[in-house]
């Protein structure tokens, strides 16, 4: 599972059926101090994470396939949790 920061949202009408109706957010992977690492990736967000909130997303496709209820879904990243801002925010 990776730590990331929510930097945006994408909208896609022509997509794989398993993605329809789900929120896809732009996640910027970050290290423990909050510095950016690499380019953003997209993740399916069932928790409604807000902009610049820190989240944990799973890169295991089987959890996502189970979540969307489609064994043939090509999705992989799924937001599992929103990180509490109690830790020292950088």
């Amino acid at each position, binding site marked *: 599972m990776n730590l990331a920061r929510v930097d945006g949202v994408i909208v896609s009408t*022509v*997509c794989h059926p398993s993605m329809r109706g789900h929120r896809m957010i732009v996640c910027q992977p970050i290290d423990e101090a909050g510095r950016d690492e690499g380019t953003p990736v997209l993740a399916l967000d069932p928790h409604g994470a807000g902009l610049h909130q820190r989240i944990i997303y799973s890169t295991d*496709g089987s959890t996502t396939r189970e979540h969307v209820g489609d064994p043939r879904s090509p999705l992989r990243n799924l937001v599992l949790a929103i990180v509490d801002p109690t830790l020292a925010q950088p």
Partner: protein
Amino acid sequence: MRLGHVIGKVTLSAAEPALRGARFLLVQPLSRAQFAGAPMEPLAPGSSLVIYDDLGAGLGHIVGFTEGAEAAAPFANPTPVDAYNAAIVDTIQYSPPLPPPASRKSVT
């Protein structure tokens, strides 16, 4: 899933039977500046890749593609594909936080 910009199409002459009739696109992954709306040319650094396309994306479209085992998931019978076009992106709302005054890695 990663975002990429379609820069070309690939047609196969000899191919695995499972790939017959498939449509392939040449895609260049977006850099962070391009997420924020920078023009697609010059192309971002990094290698481009070929993705399997079922959605009919054309040149210039921004697509969301998945890689690895998940890319082979949508097929009824096993297909040797490791990059799959899962979405044609209409809009990207991207607003990273302003860099703090302390030193911050430059936006590639």
